[in-house]
């Protein structure tokens, strides 16, 4: 049977997928269940296994090419397949690829550039009438002739138009020179879209509170003495956050239309910066039900997978609250943007020793940390957010979690 391998949908919002690596070559014999290709959505990667025993008959989409989901990326054939059927499947797949409006070859800068077509009275609209000297001058000065209006006979772009454009460019030096263009793809693109969506739809407010991190240090020390393993502060933070969320369930919710849906599960997402400037948020499901030790190993595992881009779809989905920790970058406090579908996000700053005024007006040096809570003002108000944050602060400063 001729088996067609499609670009799979890995993600609800996914429109396109990219081939990361062909693990088998065209013409290779493959057994059922054998891994044949790694594909990637904007967030996760996935390995497609062969549904049957046969030959990887033809590959249609090369590495680094992006195609819409549902596009045929390969055909697997069995020994008994008729050549006619195979040929037909190949033709259909090639037709489908031809009809793609989206160019399948990735990074071509011209294609994303927004060019303004000039209105010229011509049969071919893409042909721009320009005199030889105007063309040469435009080239010498790096001007885009599609953006220049021709004032010569027959709306031809003439020397004068170019000189004017050069002059205008001189007059307005505010337009910075382009140094480099980076195409918005993959993770970067999805971050851009989601952050914009969140920022525009959810009215955010951020409240900040300083917490004493001495207790956290104490917990960490105890943990390390007992287990001989390093404990991540993020594990302690997640633990404390789950307690606060249990006390203030409204912060573990999603607003949808006229409804606020409070979630029963507490799935905490942890923002992880990627080396190539991306950002991904693996999710620790049912974080409230995990012991500190479990949280610690889960975090370690997820962070490592995130950095290697090996996260599975299931590992980035379903978050109900997010923590973004910029402490390691020496940030004190900041105003995080909400993850779409969530009501609050906790921004964590660095732990720094500070002189703190304590009882009877004396000063002590303490390790302090600023907690920044951004929340969706449609769902909760400032006073409640303050209570949540105070609860979190008190928890962090006093609790003794089960290791």
């Amino acid at each position, binding site marked *: 049977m001729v088996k067609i391998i499609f670009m799979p949908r890995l993600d609800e919002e996914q429109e396109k997928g990219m081939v990361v690596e062909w693990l088998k070559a065209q013409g290779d014999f493959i057994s059922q269940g054998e891994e044949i290709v790694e594909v990637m959505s904007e967030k996760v990667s996935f390995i497609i296994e062969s549904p049957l025993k046969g030959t990887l008959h033809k590959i249609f989409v090369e590495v680094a090419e992006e195609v819409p989901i549902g596009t045929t990326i390969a055909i697997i054939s069995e020994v008994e397949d008729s050549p006619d059927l195979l040929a037909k499947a190949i033709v259909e797949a090639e037709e489908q690829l031809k009809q793609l409006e989206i160019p399948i070859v990735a990074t071509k800068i011209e294609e994303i550039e927004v060019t303004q077509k000039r209105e010229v009275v011509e049969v071919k609209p893409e042909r721009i009438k320009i*005199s030889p000297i105007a063309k040469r001058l435009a080239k010498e000065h790096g001007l885009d002739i599609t953006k220049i209006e021709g004032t*010569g*006979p027959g709306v031809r772009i003439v020397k004068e138009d170019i000189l004017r454009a050069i002059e205008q460019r001189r007059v307005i030096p505010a337009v910075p020179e382009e140094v480099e263009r980076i195409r918005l793809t993959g993770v970067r693109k999805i971050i851009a879209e989601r952050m914009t969506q969140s920022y525009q739809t959810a009215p955010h407010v951020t409240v900040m509170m300083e917490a004493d991190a001495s207790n956290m240090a104490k917990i960490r020390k105890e943990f390390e003495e007992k287990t001989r393993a390093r404990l991540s502060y993020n594990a302690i933070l997640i633990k404390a956050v789950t307690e606060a969320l249990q006390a203030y369930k409204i912060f573990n919710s999603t607003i949808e239309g006229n409804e606020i849906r409070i979630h029963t599960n507490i799935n905490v997402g942890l923002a992880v910066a990627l080396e190539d400037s991306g950002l991904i948020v693996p999710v620790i499901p049912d974080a409230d039900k995990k012991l500190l030790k479990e949280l610690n190993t889960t975090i370690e595992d997820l962070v490592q997978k995130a950095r290697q881009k090996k996260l599975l779809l299931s590992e980035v989905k379903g978050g109900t609250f997010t923590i973004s920790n910029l402490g390691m970058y020496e940030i004190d406090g900041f105003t995080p943007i909400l993850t779409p579908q969530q009501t609050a996000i906790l921004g964590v700053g660095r732990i720094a020793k500070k002189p703190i005024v304590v009882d009877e007006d004396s000063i002590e040096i303490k390790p302090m940390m600023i907690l920044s809570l951004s929340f969706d003002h449609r769902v909760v108000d400032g006073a409640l957010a303050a209570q949540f944050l105070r609860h979190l602060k008190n928890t962090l400063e006093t609790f003794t979690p089960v290791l």
Partner: protein
Amino acid sequence: MSTQREINMAEALNEAMREEMRRDPTVILMGEDVGVLGGVYGVSKGLLDEFGPERVRDTPISEDGFVGAGIGAAITGLNPIVEIMYPDFLPCAMNQITNHMAKLRYMTGGQLTVPLTIRSAIIQGRGSGADHAQTLIPWFVQTPGLKVVVPSTPYDAKGLLKTAIRDKAPVMFFETAKLYLNKGPVPEDEYLIPFGKADIKREGTDLTIVAICNLVLEALEAAKELEKEGIKAEVVDPRTLVPLDKETIINSVKKTNRIVVVDNNPSACGVAAEIAAIVAEEAFDYLDGPIMRVATLQIPEPVAPPLIKLMLPNKEKIITAAKKLF
């Protein structure tokens, strides 16, 4: 030196021949009515009296014959000037001109030289009929071995004719009858104008007009009109078509970025066509619009004055062509 003196083109040409004949006893003049009559326009007036019938000869109406005689005289050591009354009669002597006059020096490896100058007066546009109205200039431009001179002012005419007479190569010297009575400054002191050196008759920054013969004057008139509309036209007179001063034309186009070429010949393979092609090849990147040609219509010249006006280039047609570039 009295540069204030103004004489007309016929007088200037007469002076050129007289001076050269005085300077060099090998210079002779032959042609129909050049002697006793002094030329139909008086260009050779008084030369018979001064130099005698040995050196100034009236010929029978036999162009083929006396051009041949001129070539023979040139080969054997004289420096003849042969006058063919009108260019329309040059075809009668075409074999002599193209196959002998133009080629002998080359075909004999320089053993023979033909220092012959043929003068002829264009009477285009006079209503004398299609066979008394041609310049045929492109024929000679297309005949390697000949030099081709096309003066537009008395000054240029004199200086160029003296150079033509002294040149060892055969020269076709085209005079324009309607310019004969046009006056212009001509110094009394001797001067020569080298071939292959165009003259900028008017400076301008917005448009180059290249024209020859009487059309230089039309171009200057057009330039005056255009200036009223803010278009500063430069008028370039090549003065000699072979050799052609490409450099001056190209430099002018580099400055103005626009060019109109005016030709007293049909546009097909004409003088304007050649100059346009040179500009397209060598100054393409400086052009801000198409190269415009103003040439004669591709028809035999009519007799009726209104039709002649339709056929020939003039000030109005130059202006129309120029305005298409703005």
